[in-house]
């Protein structure tokens, strides 16, 4: 009879052995009758994967791990009662044994050591390894190596092997299916040979659960029949998923095992529109006030128009007094920016305000405790830098089985897509093609990537970034050290091609002042931190909570920093550096800079829609900090040309009226702005470079005002473009230095390091 039952495995129902809450008082009920369980001795039960979980006078209800070998069948027959067989997962069985056989201490009370549980996991997984080896998928040596690394770093063997490109996800799925005695399905190349997965699936079944459920449990519904709901899963031991599904559907589940890529493809096909929609509209829908979707609110528009009208009237009635007032307002604001910034920047010259992660901190990290980490790499028309990217990512010191890299490519960028496909990327780098929609911006791509993220943490790198090897681990260590409300850890940015030309030297010097003085200063003063474009490490949960990036803002990074602060989250600055490629071409630099300035102006207008509310949300200190950092960054560059023009006119005595709009107090103030301002910023930039150890940049900073005049060009371009094409993304060309970096083995800068 047993044999008869076992003849058709698919007819055997699935049973959960986990205790559940029942009744109005939610009493915890153990589904296992432990007296019945004693009918089998512990050794026999464990060895054969059997458990009697209930009995009636005539029958025994037995949960079994399937498939069942002959000895186990013999054991069942020897019981001499009518057997009602159900299948249970190994995990459920293991937990149940611990409960019903008291000789074995319950797992929950005694905390197993990490090594013990790891060893146990290894024992369990050897079977998958064996299966793979038997199947001729890979040599024993590879498995041993993987097991060794598993013993030190933790992780699961299947992920470990696939991350090394030693087996495919399908190979693993096949082995898992075999291990659990479950059917295996190949969704991508399965029945019909069509690669369109979802079209063959019943779309309505997806509605049973939200998208997040399918994604987090890596499961897809593949069919429904009178026998129950068919679910393809990557991990059939995920009983929580099975239980929830059963509860939701009310019918028995019939599990099958499938590959990771298959699940992703199915989800992608089914939810693509939702992903696109979410990546564009999530923030706009949830917090329309926080999105740059509409640049100016009605009120802002009215105020601006009123100011223009007032100015026009003023100019018509009394030119000089009007100009004097405008001049005074600008002069006073300029003075405030100068003084406030200097006060902030003085502190980090002597103090380590960023969070420092020591080697001891890193050593203290248990590798097995490292969570999945998502790396988003938005790239557009950057086929040329892909080899660098792959190399840098491969070299990251992080368990690859928990690395979830999403290479975010735009659908129309065939060149990069083809190049990426041709590269045979490691399995942990996933090419995610962002479907076309407007606006086509980096933040939208990032949002798209975020909705696919598997990690608990997430970081963004640009395609040409070279992070320090241990940056992800440092970020984890920083998060673990930090207070609970920390949602982002910003690493520092610098440039590997700093010595290419005078532009890259200035640019690198500017970055040193920004990332090594200003951001640590803001961090130290607990002010809102505008994030840098890359190398910002997020706790995914909080990122989703604030609505992620604003796809309509071209300085989405800075904007996100402000929104995190508003939502009560803190951003830390961490002492780890990512090296990028500095723009070495003037025109290209102007384009990039104008995008940044435009974004800052956008961000300022977005958050200033309700100044009073903003003041309440940020507090007085945060509000001033916001004005200083977001408004005060583009402001001097917009105003500088006006003053330079006036100074020149005055010198050449072309416009005799210049002194008329400078009452003496304002004249002195403007003089301070001019003389002390230039000096202070040159000097502080020098100190910033020194703080980084970029000593060689210092002498070039004497001529920094030339660089600032270029900033003004970019700032005005930005201001004008804001009126004409507010969401246009000025693309930065990368890979200009490709020839030198191609040999990546020996970067030229290395020889220059002292």
């Amino acid at each position, binding site marked *: 009879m047993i044999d008869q039952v076992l003849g058709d495995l698919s007819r055997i129902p699935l049973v959960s052995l986990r205790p559940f809450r029942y009744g109005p008082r939610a009493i915890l009920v153990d589904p296992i009758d432990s007296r019945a369980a004693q009918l089998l001795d512990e050794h026999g039960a464990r060895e054969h994967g059997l458990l009697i979980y209930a009995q009636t006078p005539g029958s025994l209800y037995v949960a079994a791990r399937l498939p069942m070998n002959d000895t186990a069948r013999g054991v069942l027959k020897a019981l001499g009662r009518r057997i009602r067989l159900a299948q249970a997962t190994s995990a459920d069985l293991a937990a149940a044994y611990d409960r019903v056989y008291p000789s074995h201490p319950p797992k929950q009370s005694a905390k197993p050591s990490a090594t013990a549980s790891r060893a146990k996991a290894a024992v369990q997984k050897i079977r998958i390894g064996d299966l793979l080896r038997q199947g001729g998928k890979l040599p024993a040596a590879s498995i041993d190596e993987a097991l060794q690394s598993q013993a030190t770093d933790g992780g699961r063997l299947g992920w470990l092997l696939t991350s090394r490109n030693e087996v495919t996800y399908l190979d693993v799925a096949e082995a898992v299916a075999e291990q659990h005695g479950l059917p295996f399905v190949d969704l991508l190349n399965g029945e019909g040979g069509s690669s369109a997965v979802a079209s063959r699936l019943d779309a309505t079944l997806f509605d049973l659960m939200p998208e997040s459920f399918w994604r987090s449990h890596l499961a897809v519904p593949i069919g429904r029949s009178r026998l129950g709901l068919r679910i393809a899963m990557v991990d059939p031991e995920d009983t929580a998923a099975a239980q929830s599904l059963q509860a939701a559907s009310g019918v028995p589940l019939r599990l099958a095992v499938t590959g990771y890529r298959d699940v992703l493809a199915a989800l992608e096909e089914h939810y693509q529109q939702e992903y696109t929609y979410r990546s564009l509209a999530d923030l706009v829908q949830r917090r329309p006030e926080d999105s740059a979707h509409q640049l100016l609110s009605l009120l802002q528009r009215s105020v601006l128009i009123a100011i223009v009208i007032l100015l026009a009237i003023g100019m018509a009635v009394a030119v000089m007094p009007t100009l004097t007032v405008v001049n005074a307002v600008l002069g006073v604001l300029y003075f405030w920016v100068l003084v406030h910034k200097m006060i902030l920047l003085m502190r980090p010259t*002597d103090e380590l305000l960023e969070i420092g992660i020591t080697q001891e901190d890193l050593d203290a990290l248990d590798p097995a405790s490292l969570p999945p980490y998502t790396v988003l790499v938005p790239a557009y028309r950057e086929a040329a830098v892909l080899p660098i990217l792959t190399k840098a990512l491969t*070299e990251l010191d992080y368990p690859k089985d928990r690395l979830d890299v999403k290479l975010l490519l735009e659908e129309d960028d065939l060149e990069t897509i083809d190049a990426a496909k041709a590269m045979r990327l490691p399995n942990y780098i996933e090419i995610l093609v962002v479907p076309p929609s407007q606006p086509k911006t980096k933040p939208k791509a990032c949002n798209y990537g975020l909705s696919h993220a598997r990690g608990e943490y997430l970081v963004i790198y640009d395609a040409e970034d070279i992070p320090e090897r241990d940056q992800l681990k440092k970020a984890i260590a920083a998060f673990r050290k930090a207070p609970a409300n920390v949602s982002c850890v910003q690493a520092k940015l610098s440039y590997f091609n700093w010595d290419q030309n005078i532009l890259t030297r200035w640019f690198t010097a500017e970055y040193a002042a920004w990332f090594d003085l200003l951001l640590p200063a803001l961090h130290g003063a607990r002010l809102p931190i505008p994030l840098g474009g890359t190398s910002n490490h997020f706790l995914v949960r909080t990122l989703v909570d604030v609505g992620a990036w604003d796809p309509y803002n071209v300085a989405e990074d800075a904007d996100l920093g402000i929104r995190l602060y508003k939502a009560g989250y803190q951003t830390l600055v961490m002492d780890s*550096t990512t090296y990028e490629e500095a723009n070495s071409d003037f025109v290209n630099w102007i384009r990039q800079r104008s995008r940044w300035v435009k974004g800052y102006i956008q961000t300022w207008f977005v958050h200033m829609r309700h100044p009073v509310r903003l003041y309440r949300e940020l507090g007085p200190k945060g509000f001033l900090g916001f004005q200083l950092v977001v408004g005060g960054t583009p402001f001097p560059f917009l105003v500088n040309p006006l003053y330079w023009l006036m100074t020149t006119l005055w010198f050449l005595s072309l416009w005799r009226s210049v002194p008329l709009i400078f009452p003496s107090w304002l004249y002195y103030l403007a003089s301070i702005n001019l003389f002390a301002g230039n*000096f202070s910023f040159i000097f502080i930039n020098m100190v910033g470079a020194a703080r980084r*150890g970029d000593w060689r940049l210092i002498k070039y900073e004497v001529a920094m005002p030339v660089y600032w005049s270029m900033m003004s060009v970019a700032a005005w371009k930005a201001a004008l473009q804001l009126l004409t094409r507010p969401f246009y993304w000025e693309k930065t060309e990368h890979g200009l230095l490709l020839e030198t970096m191609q040999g990546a*083995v020996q970067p030229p800068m290395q020889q220059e390091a002292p």
Partner: protein
Amino acid sequence: MSTLSEWASRERAARPGLTHSVDPNRPPLSEGLALAGITFALSLLLGLHMVLQLHIVPDDTIARVANAYYVLFSREPHLGAIGFVWNPLPSLLELPLTVLRPLWPPLVADGFAGNIVSAGFAALGALYMNRILARIGLGRLWRLLFSALYLLNPLILFYGANGMSDAMMVATFLAAWEGAIAYLQHRRLGSLAAAALWLAVAFLIRYEAVPFAFMLAGGMLLGLYWQRRPAPEIEGALTIFLTPIVYVGAWWVYMNWLIMKNPLYFMNSAYGNASSVGTGSYYYFGLAGVTHHLLAAFLYAAQFALLFWPVVPGAIGALLLMRRKGRSSLGPLLLLGTVAVAGLQMLMLYLGKSAGWDRFFITYVPGGFLLIAFLFSHVSVHRRAVAGIAAALVLLVGDVGTLVALQNPILGHGDSVYIASVLSSQPISSGNGQFRTIASYIDAHPRLVVLLDTFSLWGVVLASRNPKQFVITSDLNFQSLLHYPGGRVSSFLVPQPKGIAQLDAINRAYPKLWSGSVPWARLVHQFPGPSHVRLFRITPNAP
């Protein structure tokens, strides 16, 4: 094999940022503040005694207060009135105090605003002296003892109290020194930046800051080189160190050009030190031998070490120490800083452009203290007590030596008159009495519009109840009124053209006016006294 991210890590590690949250060698702030407070009180009390009881009001002090006073109280208030001969910071700091004149006239009339500012700087100097002593490695007991001996040094105490700029200069030098030492010892970047800024401040007080800055930079260069710091760091650190003073210097030149239409006005104007020396009024036989004779100039400058003799054994000891014990990176910094200003003086003497006064060599005092402390810090621990007492005795005797030297000017002009007055508590007579007489005469004739050159007759303006009655040198139309006074100015006030009074603008424009040879100026009143000032009425036939 090298990889990209390893390269990134190496790149980072090879150029470590300079970030030190802890500063092991800084004494507690309370200690420094207490010392500063005591110094300030002491200097201020001595200042009060000198000004109010002994009438010691040095020209340099009151001239700077006067410059500050003109900014707000002249006929045309403007910042440019602060003048471009002297460095502007002392006047700028005295500016807010001049506002309080109505509450207490001596603040301006006796230049007491200057005494307050110099006492403040004396306090700053004591604070930084104490910090340096701590950095050199002196424990609390020794550094407090040495600091006390320093602030009691007669030269330091006297210039801290008298409102002149010498103590201010010394204080900023000490502050810059302290930062440079902190950088050499711990590579404290903030200290390097602070030192650089202090040098710029020093420039705004005295031009001697320039040689001091460059000598200190030389000391840093050697020190960093001996520490085997990489060349880019040495280059970068020195760039940071010198940028502020160079920038401020360039700014000063620019301001001279913008406002006085002469970029080197501060150096070559009729009022500059060089012109004063050129009048021969500071000349005496001793200077004759050193002009254009390098060895003589050197010996002349070296003799001033008698102002604080421990500087000589200190310097020799430091040299020997560096020879014997290898390259102590602080040695060059202390030595070069000590001789910087004296070196400049030597050069000026050689060129015949210095008056060779005692106070020009005041840096021997702090330098001597630092060098002795430096030697002391190299004594092994079990000999510290004996060595400390010996060092303290040397410094104490040095202080006594200063007192002796001040009373018997080593060479040429000293301030021995003032010192004698302080020691004997005998008030001295100054030109102030004459100024008051002139001021009260003009106050009694409120309809007069009097043109005078504040270079020589500042005291009249300060003593007057109505400063707006005067057309002064910094007024924008001064030159115009000087040359075309007819109908615009009622009177000229002019001192007898002898000594530096020859540089008086009226005397330069009309050398014969004082003697009565200008037809359109009629003598109205004479004020006999040291300057023998005359008041002339401008007749209608004046140009």
